[in-house]
């Protein structure tokens, strides 16, 4: 296998961190410690991990309402993420963005985005900046979006733009089979969303999104193309979310137990563990030590978030603009 030991450890750490972050975040949400709606991504660990394994802080990603996995794979700090979800001043966005707007520009993370499809052209714009500056080899744009966004016009506009301008973009469609409760077999007109790439003059690749090695390989090719100035690639990563659309959603109202079992049997983390131990790439002991470290990290993250202060009341008016001469407060 053509992956370094360090990279394998990073992949396992990242996938397990995403899994445990989502589970921990849900526990805290049900305890009433989250201040709003959250969209867990557990089950979908392989796509962000396999893709971001090829990226650095100089590369940019756009994300979605289901963005915690993208954030973690891009290197964001789970303490600040947890604090953000709890609305705290120490959160990634000072408590003003919440779960659906976690961003870290120092890490090349353009922000989770709560309008379906809306972040796609942002990643294209980041790639445009790279092309403008002549640094495509070190700065590409990756747009994460779901099967729901594949029906949004702005995706199609963005694919056409990226193709005609030959921009270093990877369109990463995480097809988890459902847009909220609506199944993709109902809402998507093609068997494979990736087949649409052909119409925009770019390669479209269907990838097993439950297999992090398959994602890693496909993403490696797509990102290498982008860095070489050969333009965009479309990846359709067939994956599954273990929980509902949002924390309180009950997916068995629109999915079957058989279907859920099918994907749990192909769990990205378990299949990774099986493969690396069978092939003697990592030891069971090493895997456990990574898991133990993540468990500790989650405890500390929750503790940090719970014990962090609320934003100052004046934060309400901060950062609407860089500068603005009219008074901001509302009329009372």
């Amino acid at each position, binding site marked *: 296998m053509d992956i370094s030991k360090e990279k394998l450890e990073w992949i396992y750490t990242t996938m397990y961190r995403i899994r445990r972050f989502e589970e921990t975040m849900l526990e805290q949400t049900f305890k009433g410690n989250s201040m709003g709606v959250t969209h867990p991504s557990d089950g979908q660990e392989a796509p962000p991990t396999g893709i971001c394994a090829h990226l650095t802080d100089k590369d940019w990603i756009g994300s979605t309402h289901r963005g915690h996995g993208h954030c973690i794979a891009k290197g964001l700090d789970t303490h600040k993420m947890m604090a953000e979800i709890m609305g705290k001043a120490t959160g990634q966005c000072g408590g003003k963005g919440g779960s659906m707007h976690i961003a870290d520009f120092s890490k090349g993370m353009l922000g989770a*985005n709560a309008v379906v499809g809306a972040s796609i052209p942002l990643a*294209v*714009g980041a790639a445009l900046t790279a092309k403008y500056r002549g640094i495509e080899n070190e700065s590409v744009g990756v747009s994460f979006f779901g099967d729901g966004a594949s029906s949004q016009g702005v995706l199609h506009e963005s694919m056409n733009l990226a193709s005609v301008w030959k921009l270093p973009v990877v369109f990463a469609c995480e097809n988890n089979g459902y847009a909220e409760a609506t199944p993709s077999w109902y809402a998507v007109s093609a068997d494979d969303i990736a087949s649409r790439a052909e119409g925009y003059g770019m390669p479209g690749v269907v990838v097993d999104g439950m297999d992090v090695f398959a994602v890693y390989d496909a993403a490696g090719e797509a990102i290498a193309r982008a860095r070489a100035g050969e333009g965009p690639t479309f990846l359709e990563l067939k994956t599954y979310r273990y929980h509902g659309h949002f924390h309180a959603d009950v997916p068995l109202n629109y999915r079957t137990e058989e279907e859920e079992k099918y994907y749990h049997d192909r769990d990205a983390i378990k299949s990774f563990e099986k493969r690396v131990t069978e092939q003697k790439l990592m030891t069971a002991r090493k895997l456990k030590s990574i898991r133990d470290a993540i468990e500790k990290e989650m405890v500390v993250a929750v503790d940090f978030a719970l014990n962090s202060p609320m934003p100052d009341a004046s934060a309400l008016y901060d950062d*609407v*603009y860089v500068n603005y001469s009219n008074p901001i407060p509302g009329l009372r």
Partner: protein
Amino acid sequence: MTTQKSVNPLGPGYEGVPGEEKRFRDVFRDTLRAEMIRDEDVFLMGEDISGGFDKETKEPLDAWGGPFAATKGLVQEFGPERIRDAPISEAGFVGAAVGSALTGLRPVVDLMYFDFVTVAFDQLLSNAAKSRYMFGGQTKVPLTLFARSGAGTGHAAQHSESFYSMLAHIPGLKVVVPSDPYSVKGLLAAAIRDDDPVFLINDKKLINLTGFVPDDEYVIELGKGRYTRRGDDVTLVGMSYTSIACQQAAEMLATEGIEAEVIDMMSLSPFDEDILLESVMNTNRVVIVDEDTPRASMASEFAAIIADKAFDYLDAPVKRVTAPHSPVPYNKGLEDAFIPQPADIITTVRKLLGRE
């Protein structure tokens, strides 16, 4: 180079300031050019801003030079990377412009007709205007957009909108409305240099207007209005084209012995509350003239501010002269009736002063 006083009554008329009489459209292009020379991160994006490509060489033809030839010649100087012709994908390229602004460039987007902003509205509202706030001040969006507004040129319902208040309503976005060559130079330069997203709305009726423009580089502070005429009897408040209509009305009213004060707002978000209140406290009467439709308009906002903060100074109700609550009609007679005309302003002022 001349040092003449402006023949355009809205010009600054600086005595002794070097400058010359110029067309609005030429000043607009020259300012874009100057800002692109000044800062290599500034680039322009839009449909047909050069216009046309040679099939063999793939080189831009500059056949259009932009809608209303606003960018003619720039592609020869700056090349197709900085004068970037876009497919007809407003949501896509406005979104890409926001993405490039978030990652360090200073994009300027030509949206052609103001009506087309609705096609890109999600990118403008949810991404351009909100990114700084919802990400806790981590980033800024130094994006400038411009488009042509206004009725009066037979462009009918979908190419003639002036819905200023739709944009001024959005926290995180700034809105400016130049009314003459002097103000477009200062406001466009200020918009491009500003670190927040700014929408410059350019009324089509002004494009061939001439006026005095100082030679030196300058910016007009966003959020500042100006007096273009002083008087004690009534305040006329204009924005974009209606500043011209107010000025013309004021000159005609002067022949009847009514001295109107005229304010050109220039910026709609932020806007110059102080100049509105100062003038109303002086004249005690105010007519606000807006080509936008009246519901939830800038005229209504200014009226509310005046009623709230200068109530005791008012000798008469705050009056608004606006377009009707209708789309823009095609027929010339109907279109003229849609637009607030100097005659409408004069009639309103006469009623206000009891001189019918």
